[in-house]
Structures are given as C-alpha cells and as structure tokens.
C-alpha cells in the first residue's frame, strides 16, 4: 500500500512547492521575473560619452571614482522612463546620491526639451546615441538603474520604473553599507 502511495505523496510535495511559490509571489517576497545582472559584484563598465546638454564636452566615468553613484538608462521614447521621472527627481534630491543618466539611442534636442520640461534629476546626463555603452552594461530595455560602489563595483540593478519603495528596499541598505552618500 505504502509503495502505491509514493506518487500521491510526491504530488503533494510538488503541490506544496507550488503553494509556497504562489504564496511568496502573492506577498511580494518572491519575484521570478527579477533578472540578476551578471555584472553584480564586478567592476562597472567604464565609458566616456558626450554630454546631452553640451555634446562638445565629454564625461568620463572614472571621474566618479570613490563615490557611490547611480547609473540610470533612459530615453525620451520610453513611456516607463516618464513614469519613473518624478521618483528620480525626488530620490536624487532626498538621498544625495549622484545620478548619472545614460540617454539611450535618443535625439539630443528631444532629450534637452524633455529635461527642461519635466525637471532634471541627473548630476550628469550623457548621450549613448549608438547604444554601445548600454550593451556593455547588459541593458535589456529602458529604464534600468544600477548602483555603483565607491570602489567602482556594480552593487545592484533594477529593471523597470524605479519607485521610492524599490529604492528603500533594494538600494538604500546598500548605500548605507557604503557609508551613505558622498
């Protein structure tokens, strides 16, 4: 009899796994869609790109050495970026962590108009017109936000519109581990 019960017990165990998975997805402690970037824990890709505000000048990511900072990949063509824009503005103001914006495959004039209209959360915004740097960062789609440590390592990545809640949960603890904003 017991031998014949094995399949039923295995099915119950499988059901329990499914139940816990659904339960954790339901209360938000499990996110199967979260994609962990292979970059996490590794050196952040370096880049030198022209500024959106003044393409004659270039920004070198080495200038951020020794600081905790955020890299946010966005574009004026991306509706979810518009959605997170207000949160970016308030987060950059409240936390004091510098935000570096990478304007991905975009039109410079449009980007300037967008920032003038909606406000500018970024300390620096650079134009990645060809999308090469975004490839180095392994960007799937905009917006994506990265946190970089003082010694230049990628600490965290978030794909999708950033919110205060996401910041508080994912980024804030890492920033305080680094000794807070510079």
């Amino acid at each position, binding site marked *: 009899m017991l031998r014949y019960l094995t399949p039923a017990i295995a*099915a119950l165990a499988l*059901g329990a796994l*499914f139940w816990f998975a*659904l339960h954790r*997805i*339901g209360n938000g402690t499990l996110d*199967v869609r979260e994609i962990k970037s292979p970059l996490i824990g590794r050196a952040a890709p370096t880049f030198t790109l022209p500024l959106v505000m003044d393409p004659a000048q270039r920004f070198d990511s080495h200038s951020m050495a020794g600081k905790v900072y955020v890299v946010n990949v966005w574009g004026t063509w991306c509706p979810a970026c518009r959605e997170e824009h207000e949160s970016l503005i308030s987060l950059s103001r409240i936390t004091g962590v510098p935000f570096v914006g990478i304007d991905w495959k975009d039109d410079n004039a449009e980007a300037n108009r967008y920032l003038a209209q909606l406000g500018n959360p970024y300390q620096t915004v650079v134009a990645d017109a060809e999308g090469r740097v975004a490839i180095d960062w392994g960007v799937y789609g905009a917006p994506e936000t990265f946190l970089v440590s003082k010694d230049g390592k990628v600490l965290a990545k978030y794909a999708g519109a950033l919110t205060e809640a996401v910041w508080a949960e994912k980024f804030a603890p890492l920033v305080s581990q680094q000794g807070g904003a510079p």
Partner: protein
Amino acid sequence: MIPELGTLAMVIALLLAAAQGFFGIAGAHWNRQSWMQAVGTAVTGVWVFVTFAFGILTYSFIVHDYSIAYVATNSNDELPLMYRIAAVWGAHEGSLLLWIEILSTWALLVAIFSKSLPVAFRARVLGVLGVIGVGFTSFTLLTSSPFLREIPAKLEGADLNPILQDPALAIHPPMLYMGYVGTSVAFAFAIAAMLSGRIDPSWSRWTRPWTVAAWMCLTVGIALGSWWAYYELGWGGWWFWDPVENASFMPWLASTALIHSLAVTEKRGLFKSWTLLLAIFAFSLSLVGTFLVRSGVLVSVHAFASDPQRGMFILGLLLFFIVGSLTLYAWRAPSLKMDGGFETVSRESFLLLNNALLFATALLILLGTLWPLFMDMFNLGKISVGPPYFNIVFLVPTLPLLVLMGVGMHAAWRRAALASRARMLWMIAGGAVLLALVITLGFYHSIGLPLTVVGFAGGLFVMGSALVDPVTRLRNRQPISRSALGMAVAHFGIGVFVIGISGVASYKIEKDVSMGPGDSTQIAGYTFNFKDTRTNVPGPNYVATQANVEITRDGAKVADLSTEKRQFKIQSMPMTHAGIAVAWNRDLFVALGDDLGANKWSMRLQYKPLVRYIWIGAVIVALGGLIAMMDRRYRAKVPVTEPATDAGAAGRVA
C-alpha cells in the same frame, strides 16, 4: 446584452456539467439506470451551451465589441478577420474557454462512440469528464471570465499581441489543446476502472483509440508550435526548452509511454497498474503545464499574463485531480495482479524498457523545468536551466530508445526468437551506418558533432527496420492490420525526425552580419546578395521595412527572398518576418535585424540542412497514429456485459 448571454450559457453549462458528474459517478455507484441514462443528455447539453458561449465570444470579436474588456485588450479595428477569430484564444481568459470547449467536445465524442460499452463504465467515464468540466468552468467564471464588461467601453482595441498574428499560431493552440485536454479521456477511463474496482479485460482496447487520438493531436500541435517558432520569432531555432514548450512535451512523453503500455495491457494483461498510473500522469502533466503557464511561477516567453490568485485556484484543481486520483490508485492498484509473466527477450520487455526511458525523460525534463523555481524558493540563487542540461537528459535516454525501437518492432509477445530476424537486423544496421558515413563524410565533408553519425545511423536504422514488415507483407500479398501499419509508419516518422535533428544540429551555419545594399556574404557555398530595402511597406495593422536578398550559387540564381521588420501600430512592437527558401535538403533563412545607420543593417543569415524533416517526421508520426486508430478491432461491438443498456442508449445523444 450579448456578452451576458455568454456568461449565462457558461453558468448553465456549469450546472449541466455538475449533473453530468453527479449522475455519472453516483448513478454507477448506486446502480440507478435512469441516472446513468441522463448522463448522455447532460454531456450534449454541456457541449451545446459551451459552444454557444464560445460562439458569442467569437461573434464579439468579429463585430469589434470593445465593451467587453477581453475583446478590447486583444483586438483592434484593423486586425484581419482571421486573427480576430484566432484572438478568441489569444490570451488567458479566451484560451480557457477554448480548453472547456475542447473538453466538452471530447466528452461528446466519447458519449457518441462508446454506446457499446457497459452502461456503468460509460457513465463513470463521462462522470469523471463532467467533474473536470466543473473544475475548469468554475475557474473561468470565478476568476477569468472573458465576458466581463468594461465601462465605459473603449473606442479602439489594444490589438492582439503581434507575436500571435500568424497562420500557424492561429491553429497551433486548438491542436495543442485537443492533445492536452484529450489526455483527460484516458484519465477518465482509468478513474472509471478504479472506481469500479476492476479492470475489464477489454479496458485497454476501449482506452487505446482515445489515447492515440489525443497523442496524435498533441504531436501535430507541438510540431506546429516548433515550426512557428522557427520562422516567426526570427531566431531560426526550432526548439528552445522553454518551460512552456516543456509543458507540452512532458504530457507527450507520458502519452507515448501510455500508448505502448496500453498495448501490453491489451495483448497480455500485464502492466495494469502501471498503465493506470501513466494515464493519471499524462493528464497530471497536462494540468501541471496549464498551471505553469498561467500562474506566473515560471518565466517564459510564452507565458500568459499571470496572477497568483488564479494560480491558487488552478493549484487547488491540480491537487484535487492529481492527489485524488493518485490516492484512488494507491487504494485500488494493490488488487491488480499480473496475469502472467514474460521472457527476458520478448516484446513485453522491450516495451517495459521503452516505458522506463520515456518516463525517465519526462521526469528529468520536469526536474529541469522546476529547478529554477526550487532554487529561487529556497533563496539558493537565481539560475536558469537551459539547453545544455535538457539536450543531455533528452539524448541519453532517447538514443538507446532508437535501437530498442528498431529491434523491438520485430520481437514477438511472450518470448521472442530474434535469431530468425537477427541477420536482417544486422544488415539494416550495417547499411544504416554505411549510409550515415556516406551522408556525413561524402555529402557534408565532415564527421560533424560527436553524435552526428550515431544520429544519422540511428534514424536510418529505425526507418529501415520499420519498413521490413509492411514490405514483406506487401511482397507476400499478406494483409497487414491498420494497427501494425500505423506502428510502422509512426516509427518510420521518428526515424525521419531524428535525421532532421542530426542534420540541422550538426551542419547548420548561422551568421550575423552587417550588410547594406550591394553587399554580399557567402555561407555554405551560397552567396547572399543584399539588393535593396523598401521602407514604409504597409500591412493591415503594421508598417514594415523590407529587405530584398537574392541568393545565388555558382552564379546561378537560387532564390529571391524578402524579409521584413514589422512595426505594429498599436502595440508598437517590432516583429521580424524571416525570408526562407525551401529545398528538399536545406532551408536558407534570412532575417532582417536592426538599422545600424549609414545604410547598413544587421542581418541574420542561416543555412539549415534537413531542418524540414523535423516537422515532416512529426507529421508522419501523427499519421501513423491516425492509421492505428482506425484499426478494425476498435470499431467492433463488444459483448454487452450488463443488462438493460439499449433502451437508454438510443435516445441518449440526441
């Protein structure tokens, strides 16, 4: 008013399905003739009302009734009629209605074609199908009704996911569901047998044609899905081991094992409890697939919009059916004893090995599919299990299976004297190896991958071995039963399929290049000349950029291909439409990629030798199933073992 009629029809169908379940199972239990006779009427009623509801949803799509949320989300004024109809099953809610429609159709077919079965057995089978219907209809009504209104109504729909706007994908889900849901029939037969506490000697003969029918639909459905992925996703791959693909492949493996084990149970009265277990597994794996696709526990490119609430409901259904049936199994199976033994070398032992290998493959694929979820659950890290794992767990059991298949077809029941056939089998094997070497070294000038020769030789061996029996009988003017012919055809198809895989896996050439008008690239002796591009090519609901490519070989023109990048207007999603030149021995595949600026484009060029044989093989396999299903003995009337059946049977399915 119209969509409310749809909801009403579903509610009536739910009540009738409950009646079908109750009268079927309770009627047989307490031996109430009038209850059992009511079951057939209930089955017809369920079918009529579900079909009515299905018709209403289809009608709402045709007339653009955007007051229905489901229609507004999945259709658009510019969507062509064919895709408006296919959009009915284009997302979660409607595809669930399709599930129920197909379930009720299977039940109706069983009711029509099983009048010669003992009344109580037939009532139980239909009763079990009724209980399944209750589960899924209430799931639809309570969590996923496609008939819900959206007020105020949208003026324009959000369009069908562009990825689904394709002829193959319009018929792929119905075919696949026929297979998925069809496994419920074998399941119902198994449960009916266990409820009655005994397996009728004819039980497997009744179950076999239904199992084969469902398995055949599943085969065609999976093949269509693979074919679609090949030309529509623009990657040129034909199988990705995606969780959703695995969800369809696992029931296929279990059904394949079931068909073979049913053969043993029918001919020799052996493997009874194993056969019952497989019937439960095949349906359970279909349910697990449904759960995985719709609950959002796994990440997949095909997954429906997910919702843990719905997931809980399906999980409840899943546990009820699977754990319930397995408990019933644990209770009844010990009383099923074997009616006899068999020798080590016999058809039985070959089929036993076949079952063990198919079952192991299904379990290993299940393990790989669920492993990421398991790791994630216990915070052991996020991983994805990909082709390297699946290719191995698939190849290791299936290569021996090819040899077993080739030899086992010639083994007799009880005790096989393979010696008489050994000489011929060795000759076929030798010929297959020789031909495999000619193909690899002679034709492709390379030994390919480590398993290339094994693959070609295995495929050829099975094809040759499958032909022996039909050819011998034809030559001796002996008749061949449809059942035997079907087996030979299906096994021949497997050989063709294996040759296709071996060819494309070993000798494909894929090249991603940057090209502009006037550029040309060579692969596998073919020259791909990028002629020109045309922008703003209008489609019904998209605008395309088209690239024209001319392919030549040794200066002679082989084909003109055009490939498009389609920008869908509403969902603003770019889709690649590949250009493919087909010949008997290869496909040439061109897909347009991104605009790199400066009049250059990224282009994906591929040479795919023998790739067509993968799907041709699958179709031959399904054809074998169709032939076997039509065997004469499945249509013969069985002696009626219980009295007073005919009075009700006549009027039952009116």
